[in-house]
Structures are given as structure tokens and as C-alpha cells.
């Protein structure tokens, strides 16, 4: 079989090695536009033991590469005046030039033909082979030649970065965070041999411009970075090699092959460098492609389909993790008010690592974080403490025994906050005829948090057994909303609430709060979410009023804040008051979490001790994706931008998730979602 490979990077070289190794009779020809010793970007890093697969695939090159690698297990986080060292990670780094030279040598030994310094303008001359491989990187010529088949999508990350080298081997992988007059700078540094390190510098576009980096040449930019990181560099100089500022570009393709042409590595997909996986993915792609090729005895179509089927989900998962990681590093200054313990913990758990993963990697670090968390909660200074889920939380005179909240209807879920279903403040505010308006006495055994609301334009619907937002056959009570816009096309048009209506509703909230206090509930949760009457005022999608209750956010918040202040005045001073609100409408033209930071601050100033951060359901056709932990990122942002206490929710179901969210400072309490018990036993009778 004749194979043409474009690009002598790790993916192209490694694939050619594996193909040639599998069958000496294959003619494998690699075409590269650069000189064999030319390379950009200093060292590459492998994280999480990703070299194991290489050992199986080709022992000879595995031995050569591991021999050239610098390996280390701790990483350092330089933040404020403290360096936190976290153990138990597995990293190795190798000079990119060294890696390529080793792979070139191995390829030549096996009889692969390598042609360097020939730049192709078109891939026509490669098409005389049986298999044509695009291993030509993020700016792939092969990909762009078949764009209509691969259908690539591109997306730029917001932050600016540049790759530098330094003639100094950092002892271990190091993250450095610096506050400057222009804004925060960060560097991700790792050694790739005994004497040199890669240093990637990241800044936000605003910082970049304020520092004047947009106007500087390569040399001047580097000198700015040298001054910023002078302390960690110990006065050493940085090195540049086409180290220009750029923004990271995500590449995703619908397909990676068409006919006899296939792309792999960066040509097919990129993953943000902050999880150190680009080279790993490229090499794994090569392994999968070679394996599929061998398995199908050079029947191309099934081989390429199998390669893609095997690799797409792996790549998607990694791209998702790297998206989360990239988002974290872009907004990391949000967490610059954290103590070093929590800051380091948050960094470590930013994408995929959880509390229990981290406890296995570095038990001492996690013990320290748990003790720190306990100290924050209680003032005690223990050597070891229960995990964060079991740290108490004091809210006014109420002490929650732990950080767990459960929806009512779980029977006895254990100690924690028990959240009731919504109680309507008045009969007209009911969601369904079964929505309670009477407030029962608080059950023993848990702190009862009573949810009070007014369904507004989502009112007068049927009980949820057969569906939600299904109108009652004859609407027995009228619906009120901020504006006369129905919640769904099939629901009646609500009446625009007049001033007098608002006074009545506000009074009903106050009266219900009085009854709740008498009934012994420990906390109130005002429902300003899910499209109910107060929520309808907050979102521009449901509020088109032109009076003082409509228009800019401050006006739209007027009614909810009136309710909040009135209830706060009635609700016993020693008891906490919580508000549930929709932080993101997830709909075009609706509120985003960015807008909702101001709402959070206003609710906090209005007397809310705690916010339950929810998303979606402002309109009937929103785009909430219900992915893993779907509400947690928004809760995190609200908590740390507005500096308020929050309850996070959204597919949180394990204590490990709870501990991770709490210790990372993403939320103060977690509302658990029930998961279905796995079914075991014989198959159900089919009749």
C-alpha cells in the first residue's frame, strides 16, 4: 500500500512508523515543508501517564522518548506570596525538537521516506497514493482542501498567549499568578530537559492592551514578561522563537475522513494547552489509525470509519475538559480573593479531578484543605476534619449541621436542609389546584426551608403527573404577569399586574412569611425563579412594561425587591432568608449569568442571606442542556463575582461532587438531585 503523509510532526511521523512496522511492504512517504531541525514551541508535555500506550505500540521509540523525557510528579502553584506544592500528578516533558529527531530516526530506520523543505501549495501531487494523511497541524492544507467534507468549525479563546523558553529547569510544573498594575499575568512553566523549560504566558485581552503588548515587537513583549516574572526566574532571561502573541483556536470537525483522505492530530481537532494534551491526542490518533488499518487488512473505508468512531468520543471528552480548563484560566482573577489553600484546590479541580481523586494524589494537601475549610466554618483549628459536605454553616442564628439540601419527598434523607415544594402565597398564585397554600408545621429531624412563590403566568395548570404547563380545562383563576405575554403559545394570555395587584401579592408574601414563622420553619426560600410572577418581572423576555417596574434591570428588579424587603421585615431577624432566582434564561434575548451578577448583589443588599441559583424555564423553549452539573458553573460565577452565599443545583448527586464544589468555593450548599437506582435482577416480563 502506498501512503502519503503531509506533515512530519508527532502525528505524521508516529503514524508512518506504525504503518511501516506493521508491514514492511507499505510505501510510506512523509512530506514536510520545514527543515528537519526546525521547530517552534520549545517542549511538549504529557500529563496523566499518557505514554503507556506508546509502550504497546512501538517499544523502540517508547524507550527512546522516555529516555529523553524529564518527568516529575508534583506541581507548584505560585500565588500571592505562597507556593503550594501538590503531589501525585504524573507529568513528563520532552523538547519538541528532540522528540521529532527521535521519531525521524526511528522512521528512517524502518524505511519510511522523509522529504523535508518542500512546501506544497496543493495536495494534488499527494493523491496518487492509496491513503493520504493530513498530519499537517492546525492550519492543515489537507483539511482546507476538503473543507466541505470535514466541515471544520473554528472558535477563538478570548485570552492572549505566547510560548517562550527559558534556560532554567523549573523544579516541577509551575503555575505562576502575578498581579500587575495592568492586570493579572499567569505563566504555565514546565521543564523539558535538565536545563530548559517551556514558559507559556497568558493574559486577558484587556491586560494585554493595558500593558501595551499589542504595540510591542517580540523582544519588547518578552522583556515585559521577564520583569513580571523576575522573581520566579531568578533574574534569568527568557528565550523567544517566533513567540508571538496569539489567541488559541479551537478546531472541531464533523468528519475526519473522506474517500482515501484522513486527517489526524491538530489538523482534525485542537485541545487547549492548559491540559497538556495536544501531543498526546496526536500520538493516540496515530495508534488508533494504524490499528484500524491493520485490522481491516487495508480495506480503507471501514478502517477509517473505525478510526473515527473510536477516536471521536475520546477527543470530544478531552476537548470538553480543555474547554472548561481554558474557561477557568481566562477568568481566574475572579478567584484572586481566595486564600491560597482554596485557590490551589480550585485550580486542581477545575476540569476533571474531584475531591476523592485529589485525595488519592495528595492526601496531605486534601487533609490540609479540609482542615482549612473546617476552620473557616467553625473557627476551630483541627489537624484533620470531616470533608466539606459535613462542615456546619452558620446563617444568622441558625446553624446548619452540614452543607446538604434535599428536596422534600425523599422521606428522611438525613440531617440537612429540607426544601419544601412551592407553597403559593395566595390561591391565585397556585401552579396547579394541588399547589398548597396552607403552611403545615415544620417536620422534625431536619431544618425545614419553606419555598414561597406565586406562579404568575405559569399558574392554573394541571398537576404534573401527565405533563407540565398544560392548561386546566376551564381556567378557574386568572393569571397575572409582568406583561400580557403567555408563557407558551397554548396558555392563556395573563393580565398585566397593576400596582394594586402587586401590593396584594406583596402583602400575601408577608402574610405567608408570618404563618411560616409560626409553623416553625427555619428558613424561607422566596421563589423568584422558573417563570413565576416575581421572575416575570426580572427577565426582559417577559417584562415589557413601560412604568417604573419595567425597562432597565434596576427597574425590573423593583417588584421582587419590594417583596424581599417586606418579607425580611416580617421574617424573624434571627432566621435566614433565601431567594431562588434564575441566573440565566438560556434563551435568545434573555438574561445571561453576566447580567445576573448585579441581580445577585441587589438581592443580597435587599436582605437575602443565601441565593439558590437556577437556570432556564423563563420561557417554554429555552436551551438548557442539562449536562453534568449544569447549574454549577453559573452558581460559581454568581458566588464569586457578587460575593454572596449560594446554593448550587443541577445534577449534583454524589458526596464527591458536593465536596469538590464546596472546597473549590463554587457554592456554599449543594441541592442534591436524586439519581435512579440501577435495576438489577431478572429481565422484566415482556408481556
Amino acid at each position, binding site marked *: 500500500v502506498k501512503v502519503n503523509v503531509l506533515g512530519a510532526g508527532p502525528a505524521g511521523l508516529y503514524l508512518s512508523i506504525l504503518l511501516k512496522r506493521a508491514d514492511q511492504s507499505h510505501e510510506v512517504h512523509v512530506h514536510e515543508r520545514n527543515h528537519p531541525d526546525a521547530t517552534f514551541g520549545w517542549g511538549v508535555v504529557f500529563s496523566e501517564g499518557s505514554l503507556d500506550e506508546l509502550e504497546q505500540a512501538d517499544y523502540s521509540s517508547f524507550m527512546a522518548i522516555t529516555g529523553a523525557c524529564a518527568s516529575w510528579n508534583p506541581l507548584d502553584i505560585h500565588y500571592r506570596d505562597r507556593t503550594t506544592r501538590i503531589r501525585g500528578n504524573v507529568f513528563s516533558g520532552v523538547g519538541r525538537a528532540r522528540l521529532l529527531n527521535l521519531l525521524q530516526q526511528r522512521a528512517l530506520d524502518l524505511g519510511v521516506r522523509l522529504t523535508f523543505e518542500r512546501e506544497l501549495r496543493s495536495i494534488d501531487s499527494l493523491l496518487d497514493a492509496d491513503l493520504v494523511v493530513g498530519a499537517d497541524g492546525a492550519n492543515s492544507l489537507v483539511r482546507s482542501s476538503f473543507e466541505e467534507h470535514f466541515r471544520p468549525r473554528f472558535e477563538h479563546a478570548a485570552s492572549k498567549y505566547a510560548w517562550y523558553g527559558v534556560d532554567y529547569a523549573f523544579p516541577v510544573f509551575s503555575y505562576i499568578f502575578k498581579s500587575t498594575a495592568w492586570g493579572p499575568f499567569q505563566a504555565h512553566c514546565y521543564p523539558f530537559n535538565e536545563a530548559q523549560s517551556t514558559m507559556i504566558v497568558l493574559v486577558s485581552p484587556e491586560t494585554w492592551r493595558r500593558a501595551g503588548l499589542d504595540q510591542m515587537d517580540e523582544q519588547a513583549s518578552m522583556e515585559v514578561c521577564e520583569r513580571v516574572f523576575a522573581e520566579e526566574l531568578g533574574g534569568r532571561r527568557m528565550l523567544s522563537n517566533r513567540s508571538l502573541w496569539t489567541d488559541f483556536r479551537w478546531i472541531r470537525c464533523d468528519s475526519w475522513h473522506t474517500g482515501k483522505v484522513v486527517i489526524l492530530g491538530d489538523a482534525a481537532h485542537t485541545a487547549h494547552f492548559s491540559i497538556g494534551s495536544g501531543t498526546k491526542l496526536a500520538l493516540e490518533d496515530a495508534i488508533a489509525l494504524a490499528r484500524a488499518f491493520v485490522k481491516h487488512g487495508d480495506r480503507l473505508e471501514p478502517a477509517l470509519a473505525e478510526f473515527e468512531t473510536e477516536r471521536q468520543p475520546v477527543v470530544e471528552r478531552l476537548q470538553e475538559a480543555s474547554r472548561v480548563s481554558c474557561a477557568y484560566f481566562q477568568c481566574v482573577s475572579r478567584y484572586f480573593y481566595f486564600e491560597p489553600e482554596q485557590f490551589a484546590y480550585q485550580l486542581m479541580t477545575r476540569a476533571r479531578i474531584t475531591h476523592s481523586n485529589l485525595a488519592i494524589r495528595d492526601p496531605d494537601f486534601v487533609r490540609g484543605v479540609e482542615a482549612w475549610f473546617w476552620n473557616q466554618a467553625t473557627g476551630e483549628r483541627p489537624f484533620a476534619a470531616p470533608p466539606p459536605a459535613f462542615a456546619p454553616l452558620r446563617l444568622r442564628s441558625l446553624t446548619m449541621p452540614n452543607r446538604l439540601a434535599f428536596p422534600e419527598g425523599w422521606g428522611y434523607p438525613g440531617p440537612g436542609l429540607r426544601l419544601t415544594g412551592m407553597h403559593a402565597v395566595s390561591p391565585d398564585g397556585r401552579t396547579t389546584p394541588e399547589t398548597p397554600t396552607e403552611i403545615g408545621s415544620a417536620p422534625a429531624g431536619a431544618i425545614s426551608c419553606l419555598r414561597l412563590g406565586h406562579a404568575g403566568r405559569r399558574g392554573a395548570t394541571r398537576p404534573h403527573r401527565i405533563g*407540565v404547563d*398544560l392548561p386546566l380545562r376551564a381556567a378557574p383563576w386568572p393569571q397575572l404577569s409582568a406583561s400580557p405575554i403567555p408563557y407558551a*403559545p397554548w396558555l392563556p394570555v395573563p393580565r398585566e399586574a397593576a400596582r394594586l395587584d402587586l401590593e396584594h401579592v406583596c402583602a400575601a408574601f408577608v402574610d405567608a412569611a408570618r404563618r411560616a414563622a409560626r409553623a416553625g420553619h427555619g428558613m424561607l426560600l422566596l421563589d423568584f425563579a422558573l417563570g413565576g410572577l416575581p421572575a416575570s418581572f426580572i427577565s426582559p423576555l417577559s417584562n415589557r412594561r413601560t412604568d417604573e417596574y419595567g425597562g432597565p434591570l434596576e427597574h425590573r428588579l423593583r417588584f421582587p425587591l419590594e417583596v424581599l424587603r417586606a418579607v425580611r421585615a416580617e421574617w424573624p431577624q434571627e432566621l435566614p432568608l433565601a431567594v431562588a432566582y434564575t441566573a440565566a434564561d438560556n434563551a435568545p434575548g434573555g438574561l445571561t449569568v453576566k447580567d445576573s451578577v448585579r441581580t445577585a448583589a441587589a438581592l443580597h443588599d435587599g436582605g437575602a442571606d443565601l441565593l439558590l441559583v437556577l437556570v432556564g424555564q423563563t420561557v417554554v423553549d429555552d436551551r438548557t442542556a442539562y449536562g453534568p452539573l449544569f447549574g454549577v458553573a453559573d452558581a460559581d460565577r454568581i458566588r464569586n463575582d457578587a460575593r454572596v452565599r449560594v446554593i448550587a443545583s443541577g445534577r449534583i448527586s454524589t458526596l464527591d461532587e458536593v465536596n469538590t464544589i464546596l472546597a473549590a468555593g463554587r457554592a456554599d450548599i449543594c441541592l442534591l438531585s436524586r439519581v435512579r437506582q440501577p435495576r438489577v435482577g431478572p429481565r422484566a416480563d415482556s408481556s
Partner: protein
Amino acid sequence: MRVGIGLPTSTPSLGRELLLEWARRADAGPFSSLGTVDRLAYGCLEPLACLAAAAAVTNRVRLVTMILIGPLRDTGWLAGQAASVDSMSGGRLSLGLGIGARHDDYRAAGVDHSRRGLELARQLVELRLAWESGQKGATPNQEGGPEVLVGGSGPAFARAARHAHGYCHGGGPPRAFAGAAARARAAWLDLGRPGEPQLWGQGYFALGDAATVEAGRDYLRDYYRFTGGFEERIAAGCLTTPSAVKDFVRGYEEEGCDDLVLFPAKSSLNQLDRLADVLG
């Protein structure tokens, strides 16, 4: 988990005898349901017409559309047709609805493609009201109308939770089903539905010699040609050995699927018999 089988309604060489005998054997065999796919702009038998025919020769199996492209059909007629099939099958219809994946089906039906999501939501409500009123078509056998499922991704999870008895996944390995099922459950909880959604999954099979397998894959490549590249992955995912079928069934069961329907990629009665043998 119950396991059902698809009717051969879009595979090559369809016909009356094949369809009726297929339905009879499924009813007699280890299968719990008979499923249909729906494509207008492809040589495909109409799902509710086929299920009506199947209803006449079966007594036991559920009859399920996985899915039927709702917005292509007038809601009043659809309510009547579904109620009729439900009535004539003695309450065995599960009506899976979705927006489909192809523009050309909408063009063929002369229906606006741009508002299909909200149209489907409105249709789900109108179906429910029509069945309750008993004014359109026959009165369904199941109280309040046939069991309704919603298929798709993105907004489909909330749509299933808001309007249906469950969620119908579009196919793929058990892990893909698990991801979608978790979203369907999360939406169910988020919208305040009591209990759990019914979760349906599906897959393709072609059992037999190399020629059979290749014919099955060729059909899948052709049927999914419109995906522009994805058809190879679907063809590669076709279950072609007894152990692949068993692994797939086990995988879906572990991920909490309630009903799995395996669709034939080849129109031949021996396909049904072979699958019955594998499932025992």
C-alpha cells in the same frame, strides 16, 4: 429492560407478506415491541399505517414510533390516526414524536422548517387536548391518549419532560444513551415531574454471513447518506454478531433503559429469527 424489534419499513424489498409475517413472529417471539422509523423523502412505509396493519395480526407487543416526525403532519389528523391505532390495537400504541433530522422531509411535506421545535411542543399539547375531548377521530384505548415519547437532543429533553411519558434516544453505543438518559432525567426533575421518565433506546442489527452484513451496512450508508460522513459511523455501529447484540443489550440495561428496540438493516425474516435466537 424489555427488548423489541423494528419493523422492516424502510429497508429494501418491502411488502405485505414480509410485514405481516414479521409482525406475527415478533408477537410470538421474545420481543416486547414493534418499532417504526419515519422518513418522508425516502422510500419508507408510513409508520401509523404499518402499525395499524401490525395491530391487526398481533395481540401482545407494544407498537411504537421511534420516532414519527410530528410537525410534518396536521395535528388533528395525527390525533385521529394515533387514537385509531391505539383503539384498534387495544391500547398498545406508544407514540414517539420528534422533529426529525432532515430538511428535505419538510420540503416534501411543504412545512416550514424554521419553527419546528415550538411547533412540536404545541402539537404535543394539542394532541393531548384532542384525545381528551374525544372529538377528533376515535377515542383512544389508553386513558387520556396513547403513551407519548419525545426523541431528539437539545431542547428535546425539556420537551419530553414537559409533555411526554418518556424520552426516546436516537441510537448509538450504550455510553451515548447514558449521556442522553441522564439529561432526560435531569430535565424531568427540573420541570417537577413526579416519578421517572420512560427511557427508550434503539440500535441496528444485521446477522448472518458477510454478504448479509455488508448489505445491511450498505442500507445504513444509504439511509443516513444525508448526514454527510456520519453514515459510516452508523454503519460501523451496526450489530453484526450475536456477541455484539448481547453486549449492546447488556450495556443498555446497565444504563437504565426501559425498552430497547433493535431495527433490522435488512428485509428478511431470517433476521428476526436470528435475533430471536440470540435473545433467547
